[in-house]
C-alpha cells in the first residue's frame, strides 16, 4: 500500500510563498488541488516532484525522498503544457513510459494516432498522450498539472473516467475549479504564507 506524506512542506518561488502542507495520501486516492491561477498549484506539484526546492519533508512509502533525483523519486510529473518528443511517433513517445501507457492511450481512443509524429497532433491530443504516459509509468505517485486544459469536453469525460479507473497509484491533479468525485481537496488559496 503506497503512502505519500508531506510534513511541514512550504515552498517559496519568486513572490509566491505557500505552506505549510501536512498531508498523508494513500494508494488509490485522487486529490484535487484547486484555486485561482497564480496561487501556487503548479508550484506545489513541482515541489512534490522535486523539481524546485522546498522546506520540510516528503516521504514516499515511509522513505524520505528529499534528496532523490527526479528519475529515482517514484513521482511522475506531467506539466500543464502539452510536452512530447515531437520528432518521434506517438507510439514511441508512449514506449518511453512503458507498455501500459499504450493500453491507456488505446482506451482514450488514440490508437489511430500511434504512427503519427507527435508534432502533427493538436494540443488536446498531445495532452491525452502525455497523461497516458504519466498514468502508464511505474511511479506510485502521479502529478497531473491541469490535465483537462486543451482537451475537448468529450475527451475530458473520457479522461476523467480513465483517471478514476486507475488503480494502485496516488494521483494529484490541479484545476482552477473545484470538481466532483475526488478523495481529497486542497484549496490552494488557504495556503498563502505571504498573507500571514
Amino acid at each position, binding site marked *: 500500500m503506497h503512502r505519500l506524506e508531506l510534513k511541514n512542506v512550504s515552498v517559496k518561488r519568486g513572490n509566491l510563498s505557500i505552506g505549510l502542507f501536512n498531508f498523508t495520501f494513500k494508494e488509490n486516492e485522487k486529490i484535487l488541488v484547486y484555486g485561482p491561477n497564480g496561487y501556487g498549484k503548479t508550484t506545489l506539484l513541482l515541489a512534490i516532484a522535486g523539481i524546485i526546492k522546498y522546506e520540510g519533508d516528503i516521504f514516499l512509502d515511509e522513505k524520505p525522498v528529499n534528496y532523490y533525483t527526479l528519475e529515482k523519486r517514484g513521482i*511522475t510529473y506531467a506539466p500543464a503544457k502539452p510536452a512530447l518528443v515531437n520528432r*518521434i511517433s506517438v507510439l514511441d513517445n508512449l514506449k518511453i513510459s512503458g507498455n501500459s501507457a499504450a493500453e491507456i492511450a488505446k482506451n482514450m481512443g488514440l490508437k489511430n494516432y500511434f504512427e503519427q509524429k507527435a508534432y502533427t497532433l493538436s494540443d488536446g491530443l498531445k495532452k491525452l498522450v502525455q497523461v497516458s504516459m504519466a498514468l502508464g509509468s511505474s511511479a506510485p505517485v502521479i502529478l497531473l498539472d491541469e490535465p483537462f486544459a486543451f482537451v475537448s469536453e468529450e475527451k475530458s469525460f473520457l479522461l476523467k473516467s480513465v483517471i478514476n479507473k486507475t488503480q494502485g497509484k496516488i494521483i494529484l491533479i490541479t484545476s482552477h475549479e473545484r470538481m466532483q468525485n475526488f478523495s481529497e481537496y486542497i484549496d490552494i488559496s488557504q495556503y498563502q504564507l505571504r498573507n500571514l
Partner: protein
Amino acid sequence: MSEKLFHILTYLMVAIIILPMIVLYYEVGPAGLAVAFEDPQFLESLNLTFVGAILATMLNVFLGTPVAYALSRKIVKLESTLYDIFLSPVSIPHTVVGIMLLLTFSPSSPFFPLLKSINPVDDILGLSLAMFYVSSPIYIMSIKETFDKADADLEYFIQSLGKDRYFIFEKVLIPEHAGSIIRIALLSLGRAISEFGSIIIIAYSVTFLPFFQYVKPVTVFIWYKYDVYGLSSALGYAAALLTISLLISFFIYALSRKNAQA
C-alpha cells in the same frame, strides 16, 4: 531621421562585406574560376581540406554535443569556468594555436613521453586537430544556446518517468534538435575549412592518400600561390574557395529557415 540612420548603417555594413567579394569575382571572371576548378593540385588541396574539416566536425559533434549538454544542464561542476575555457580559443591568435599544438607534441613537451607515439606534424591528424581547436568554440557555444532554449518541462516530465539524463540527451534532445545540430555542424565545418593561421604551422604540407604525396591545405595552397607566384596566380583559387564557402553559408541559411518554419 533615426530610422534612416539604421538603414544607412545596415547598407554600409553590407557593402563592407560584399564589395571585396564582388571585386574578386570581377577580377577572376567565370573563365578564371573554371580554370581553378580544373587544376588537379587545387582539387587535391580542396579534397585534403574537406577530409580534415569533416574529421574536425565529427569530433565537434561527438565530443562537443554531450559537453554542451553537460554545461547547459550544469551536470558538471564549475560549468561557467569550463565554458570560458571552451570559448577561449576564440580569442587566441591562430598562429599561437599552431605553435601551442606543435610544442605539445614536440620532444621538449613535458607530455612527450605520453604523446610520442602520435606525430600530428604535417599529418591529417594535425590538420584536423588544429581545425577542431579553432572551430570547437563556435560549435559548443551554438549547441549550448540551443540546449538552453529547449523545453525544460519536457525534460522534467521524461525524467520523472524514470529516465536518466543520458536517455533524455540521446532520445529527446538529439531527435528534437537534429536540424539545429546539423546546421551548427555545418557552421563549424565552414570555420574549419577557412582556417589558415594554425595549420600553416602544424600542417603546412600533409602526406595524403592515395599516393602519399605532399598536399597543401587549400588556404595554405592559396597563400603559397600568392607568396611565390604573385597575386594574379592566387586570384582564381581564392574565388573558387570563396564560392565553396558561400555555398556552405547559403546551405546553413536554408537549413536555419527550414528549422524556423518547422
